[in-house]
């Protein structure tokens, strides 16, 4: 990391005298208007994006609305579906809290505690991103399933959902907090410490407030991923109705029974929640960026 170079040009700007000048000379002259060629490119790009993603997603919402409010409410209040949605949201929330804590601790260790073997931890953290979800399920089943070498069997219990979600959402908070923590100005912490602040006070008053937007951004990504998880649960949770069945599995079950409207209703709920999480993320990222520039 070359972040230690950053403070070098900071003292160059005289405190409070000159007009607010960008700390670093901006090389970009900013965006320009569309040329005819880029207009065509944009058209093709947006068309492809619409065919691939937007039209199908709109089709889900339209399918839901065609069923009418009654069908929507009926699908969601069916005990089995309601239980699935509750289980999904509660587990996603629980795992998000776990990630907010563990993710921040992991990021802290990776940034502030340079020990040999850190590089390996970096790879281990990214494995859940890259591992196919069905393989993730199989992997967890091997250690925490019926043939567990340590005698811990969570297969077909609600803990299996928590475990699978914790696995697949592991990298989000780590990866959003890590860069912010690396950029954080150590001078402020050292100043606080030299003025007599105890380490815990420094952490609570200086480090954590600066990290909160990044933690929240990672947490919202982790929540969005958590409520939409499917692949890692297939082998692990047993998909028992009312007990370990998550929302995605309900959608699939409705679809297999030919009930597209109910499938679309549950899907619309998941889409809505993802959208809210994404909007939150957008707002939070804006705050993180603002924090970085002033």
């Amino acid at each position, binding site marked *: 990391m070359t972040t230690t170079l950053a403070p070098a040009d900071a003292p160059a700007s005289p405190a409070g005298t000159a007009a607010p000048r960008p700390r670093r000379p901006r090389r970009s002259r900013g965006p320009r208007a569309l040329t005819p060629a880029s207009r065509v490119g944009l058209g093709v790009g947006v068309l492809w994006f619409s065919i691939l993603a937007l039209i*199908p997603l709109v089709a889900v919402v339209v399918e839901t609305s065609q069923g009418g409010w009654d069908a929507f409410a009926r699908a969601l209040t069916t005990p089995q579906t309601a239980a699935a949605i509750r289980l999904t949201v509660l587990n996603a929330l629980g795992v998000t809290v776990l990630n907010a804590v563990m993710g921040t601790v992991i990021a802290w260790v990776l940034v502030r505690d340079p020990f040999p073997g850190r590089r390996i*931890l970096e790879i281990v953290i990214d494995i859940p991103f*890259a591992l196919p979800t069905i393989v993730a399920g199989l992997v967890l089943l091997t250690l925490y399933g019926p043939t567990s070498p340590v005698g811990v069997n969570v297969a077909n219990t609600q803990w299996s959902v928590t475990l699978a979600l914790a696995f697949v959402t592991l990298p989000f908070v780590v990866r959003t907090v890590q860069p912010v923590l690396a950029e954080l100005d150590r001078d402020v912490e050292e100043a606080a410490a030299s003025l007599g602040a105890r380490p815990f006070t420094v952490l609570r008053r200086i480090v954590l407030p600066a990290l909160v937007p990044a933690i929240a951004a990672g947490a919202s990504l982790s929540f969005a991923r958590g409520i*939409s998880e499917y692949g890692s649960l297939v082998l692990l949770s047993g998909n028992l109705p009312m007990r370990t069945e998550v929302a995605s599995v309900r959608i699939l079950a409705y*679809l297999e029974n030919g009930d597209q409207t109910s499938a679309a209703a549950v899907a619309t709920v998941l889409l809505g929640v993802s959208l809210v999480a994404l909007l939150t993320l957008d707002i939070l990222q804006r705050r993180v960026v603002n924090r970085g520039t002033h």
Partner: protein
Amino acid sequence: MARTSPWVRLTLRTVVIVYLVLLVGWPVSLVVRATFTDGLTALRDALTDPTVVFSLKLTVSVALQATLLNTVFGVGISLLLVRTDFRGKRLLSALIDLPLSVSPVVVGLAIVLAYGPRGDWFGPWLTGAGVDVLFAPLGIVLATAFVSLPLVVREVVPVLEEIGTDEVQAARSLGANSLQTFWRITLPSIRWALVYGVVLTLARSLGEFGAVKIVSGNLEGRTQTATLLVEQRYHDFDHATAYAVAFLLAAVSVACITLVTYLRPAHGNAR
């Protein structure tokens, strides 16, 4: 320098290592061991099974197509998002991230509704034109491209913002056309971010499961990809093959991640 006491440091380090070993390291290593309990037999048996070979070939072919589509789209859209101004740019930029947080099952359902023969949208028309999307490779490619769509854009956009347009404008003022500018100036400066995005897209595409399960129909030897085969073989108690194929998929994805981890600092210093 060190303000944190060594005890706190050591405790946190231990907690992190134990957590990561229990959650990721140990389980992943067990799959490797399960694959090689009988030496190379399981892997060799799997690779001589024509259904397995077919599913692996299909997975690779689908992943390459989806990655190619997303790379072309990703580079083009990134250039437009960073270097031009147009109405709705922020909306487009926000929407492009959407596929990352949509459930794979919802992706599958969305494609079924929009392009399936029973949907009200393009299905009947496509069927009339003799194009099969569902239960066909085309649907699998669409589903895979959908779920891995934003990965290239997310890597390339920050780098494009960072490098600015001075060199591009210099090249243009010296008479280079857009294509020359792209190949000689822009592409070399974004190459590591692009490689990074492409590797991530490839890893994600090789491993897609939920969306593919819905659109492909899981027809053995016709539309069954490697991840679907792992599920089916596990349920059919052919655990040896399930572990062998899972090991292959895991090995490729860990190789991708390792490559990317070692590229990351390189792309920071490359310029």
